[in-house]
């Protein structure tokens, strides 16, 4: 599972890779290519573009390995570099950059798709669907922070560094995302109760 990232093992891999160990390099790639790709896709959506950026990242990594520092947490390093590169590639298209980087998240309403109100079966299926709806309704920024914090296990400090915002903003984004989940849960409960009459 991706979550179990033993960072001291990663550190050793990194050191071996820096010395030119191809095996360590291959393992770093195999270990991180999927999550990095997935992260890139959330922002760029276009597969071939994400492929190019991930590819270039690993090529440059190998070519500059001798000049790279000993990093404490290679996973953190990879995510930071990937995000910087995506931003750079986006900056060639100012319109898209604005779309997702500066959208005022407060303006986006918590909207529920219609099928949400159609009650079919109760239980787990519904809860899953309900959570899916929640995740999909989140602004990119909030989703990104949730993912980095709870799925990738980064600390608030690390997330702040990856996104170049301050720690408090990271906390606010998480609070807002969870608050939205709470609101949805309440709404769902009301709908559930009403459906009994």
């Amino acid at each position: 599972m991706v979550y179990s990232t033993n960072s001291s093992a990663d550190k050793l891999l990194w050191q071996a890779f820096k010395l030119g160990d191809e095996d360590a390099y291959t393992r770093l790639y195999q270990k991180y290519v999927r999550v990095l790709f997935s992260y890139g896709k959330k922002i760029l959506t276009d597969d071939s573009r994400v492929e190019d950026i991930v590819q270039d990242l690993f090529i440059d990594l190998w070519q500059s390995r001798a000049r790279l520092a000993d990093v404490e947490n290679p996973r953190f390093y990879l995510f930071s570099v990937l995000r910087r590169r995506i931003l750079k590639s986006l900056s060639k298209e100012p319109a898209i950059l604005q779309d997702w980087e500066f959208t005022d998240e407060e303006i986006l309403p918590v909207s529920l798709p219609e099928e949400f109100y159609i009650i079919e079966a109760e239980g787990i299926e519904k809860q899953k669907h309900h959570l899916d709806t929640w995740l999909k309704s989140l602004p990119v920024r909030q989703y990104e922070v949730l993912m980095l914090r709870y799925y990738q296990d980064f600390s608030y400090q690390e997330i702040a560094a990856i996104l170049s915002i301050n720690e408090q903003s990271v906390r606010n984004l998480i609070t807002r995302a969870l608050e939205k989940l709470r609101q949805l849960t309440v709404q769902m409960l009301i709908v559930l109760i009403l459906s009994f009459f």
Partner: protein
Amino acid sequence: MSYDNYDTADFLEDPKFRAWVYDNSPEVETFWLKFLIDYPEKSDMINSARSVLLVLFKHEEQGFPEEYQVDTMWENIVHAKERRPFLFKSVWLRLSVLTTSAAIFILVATWLLKAPAPNTAATYRALVQSDKREMAEKENRTEMPIRVTLPDGSRITLKPRSSVSYPKEFDARKEREVYLSGEAFFDVKRNPDRPFFVYANELVTRVLGTSFSVKAYDDSHQLEVEVKTGKVSVFTRKSHSKESEDCSSEAEQTILTPNQKVLYSRSEERMKKMLVDFPEVIASSDPAVIPIPHFQDAPVSKIFANLEAAYGIDIVYDENLMGNCLLTASFSDESLYDKIDLICKGVEAEFKVMDSKILISGRGCH
């Protein structure tokens, strides 16, 4: 630690909780099962925090690349990762690479600058409009290549500022026809009964099943077809239409094999066959055509024969004079031209790329 005031967010924040959901190790499992007994009132929050983590994982997993994408990216990485440092290792090598590419560039440039593109040229729009079938069109207005899948399963990688048009349904018995403006790479599903035609301005490319790219912008002076695998034949529209009427004109037709390309000058209405700028090893399962990485005291003729087979190109040299020169050489990810250059240095020879062949001239060894 007191869990009395724990809510959903606190569970999410707890690394031990996340380890339970994501890692499933026995000791955390025991801990949380006991927890559920001690704090039954927390089970709703635990469930909801657990579901949040699982749905996050599911969403991320949906964004994972397909395994073939992981492999393709890795191949590209391995291929490119040594390229730059190697090219700049020696001044000699750099000079020789520069001269070759400069030669090609000058050749193309003089050809291009000679005359403006004729106004009467066949353009994409006119070609598409003359086709009476119901057409589908894809236009790439982004800055990145996009993928297009045709009704027969063939795939097109369409470069920016390019468009393709094709019948919404390919006629089951007749040829498959596609119109192109701009640049695209084609990966054609093999079907010997239904040849595949690409109409790009004045050029027509005919294939059975193979991969190749076509560059034909409406506003440029030259058109280009490059072959990656298989065999394609390229002819001009004029000779193509004549051919279908009286089958007499074979003059303007060229057969291309992998690593060859054809340039068509619109002003001179002439085709020129040459090697692609970066020849690649032909993908093949035949052991005879796999490049051998190391030669120990091998006759040059043997090394050349291996390169010819691996890249599917002709190397022309005086076999009596040089064929028996012995050479020890190790190759890794160098380009074909770099390999040839290394060999030439070893036997005091020089090489030139002429049309679709590599010519080697030397005085033989002592």
